[in-house]
């Protein structure tokens, strides 16, 4: 039986979709069988980020409404053809059309044949968010080093506490050590002070991310950069390997007096 993890944040635009794709790929690279599910019904993006938009035949609403089986809707990744799959969202529906019971059943079925189901949650805390969370056992909260994002993440963590989420961890995305050094951005310690949950990944602010998104390529698969390494380390920690955080990150921990 696999693990179902919802990737959520409250705030929009913090990197949920990018993280879902890259983390999915990193886990697949660790020899795990992964399905990434796009729950942003009506505003689908996971397919674009993975370069699979031309391969979509069926989507999750087709499965939920009985027009096809799950297997028919799953799309193989172009590179990790046996270990990474996408279950795309529908672009024609809206979140109000989601039947939580059906979606939960779909995710449960996928869990039986895969190691990981990563669910890309939409922004917000309404029906779309609720549906994404309802089908998950665990939650990964994404936050960027700014007060708005932290406040929204705090709200979301509070909401998650009232659901059947058995484990929660935090990823700090868009970590910019220079801005943190200049005190123009929150450092990790301040974020953890407020949110108080386990930190499982720090992803640096990387200009390449947009470029890769636009080209429909997953950065973690094609680069040996610090960012790719950060994703790989996060995947390892999810797998139970207590990898220490990378050097660029430690600089931020100590604020001004970091190692160079």
């Amino acid at each position, binding site marked *: 039986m696999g693990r179902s*993890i919802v990737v959520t944040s409250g705030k929009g635009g913090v990197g949920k979709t990018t993280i879902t794709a890259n983390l999915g790929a990193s886990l697949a690279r660790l020899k795990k069988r992964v399905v990434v599910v796009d729950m942003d019904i009506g505003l689908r993006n996971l397919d674009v980020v993975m370069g699979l938009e031309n391969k979509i035949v069926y989507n999750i609403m087709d499965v939920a409404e009985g027009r096809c089986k799950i297997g028919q809707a799953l799309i193989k990744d172009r590179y990790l053809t046996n270990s990474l799959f996408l279950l795309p969202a529908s672009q024609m529906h809206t979140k109000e059309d989601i039947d939580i019971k059906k979606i939960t059943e779909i995710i449960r079925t996928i869990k039986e044949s895969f190691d990981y189901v990563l669910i890309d949650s939409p922004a917000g805390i309404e029906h779309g968010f609720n549906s994404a969370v309802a089908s998950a056992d*665990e939650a*990964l909260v994404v936050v960027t080093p700014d007060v708005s994002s932290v406040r929204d993440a705090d709200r979301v963590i509070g909401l998650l506490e009232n659901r059947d989420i*058995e*484990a*929660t*961890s935090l990823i700090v995305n868009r970590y910019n050590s220079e801005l943190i050094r200049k005190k123009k951005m929150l450092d990790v310690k301040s974020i953890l002070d407020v949110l*108080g*949950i*386990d930190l*499982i990944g720090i992803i640096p602010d990387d200009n390449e991310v947009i470029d890769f998104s636009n080209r429909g390529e997953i950065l973690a698969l094609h680069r040996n950069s610090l960012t790719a390494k950060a994703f790989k380390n996060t995947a390892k*920690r*999810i*797998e*139970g390997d*207590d990898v220490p955080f990378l050097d660029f990150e430690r600089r931020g921990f100590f604020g001004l007096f970091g190692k160079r």
Partner: protein
Amino acid sequence: MDKPALFRGTGEGITIVFNPDAYFREILEFLKKVLDERKTFFSGGTVVVDPNGTVFGESEEKLLRDLFSEYGVQLKLSKSSKFLPKSEVNAIQEKTVTVPHTLRSGQYINFNGDVVVLGDVNEGAEIKDAKSVYVFGIIRGIVEARESVVSLGFQPLRMTIGGIPYNEKNNGKRYRKPRIAKVIDGKIKIKMLGEKKSLRKK
């Protein structure tokens, strides 16, 4: 009533009426003082105790009887009230007592429900027989709780939770965020308050 207890002469002899707002320990100490000062007056006699709406458990009753027998005085419970056995006390009151200051050396709380201390529990202070104890400071004294103990530092002279003694040497660690000590698998473990399970596979 601003004294912990009042003495009243009635047809039954001397009746001691407790102040329902006083901590049991205060009452006990007050009675000890009075007994000390008026040894000859009381000895050999019988005294009636009226808890006056306060509810105490077996251990308190025993302390009271022991104290009076030291001075050769017999204790009788007033017809109108009784000491309740401990289990009944638990059922009736889910009460919390708040100590609005550091518990100093020599101060003592013996209370069946939850105890909150707005300050430290200094060495020489004691909290006994509580359900859970919540200290907004450091514990250096004696704390005995049935369920859990929360504080910003555990350096107790003695601490037991649910009867299990706490054995770690704490080397003066002082936390910025509160920790909770509770019994897990038969041993006392100290964790962050509200610690959640993480995604890291065990």
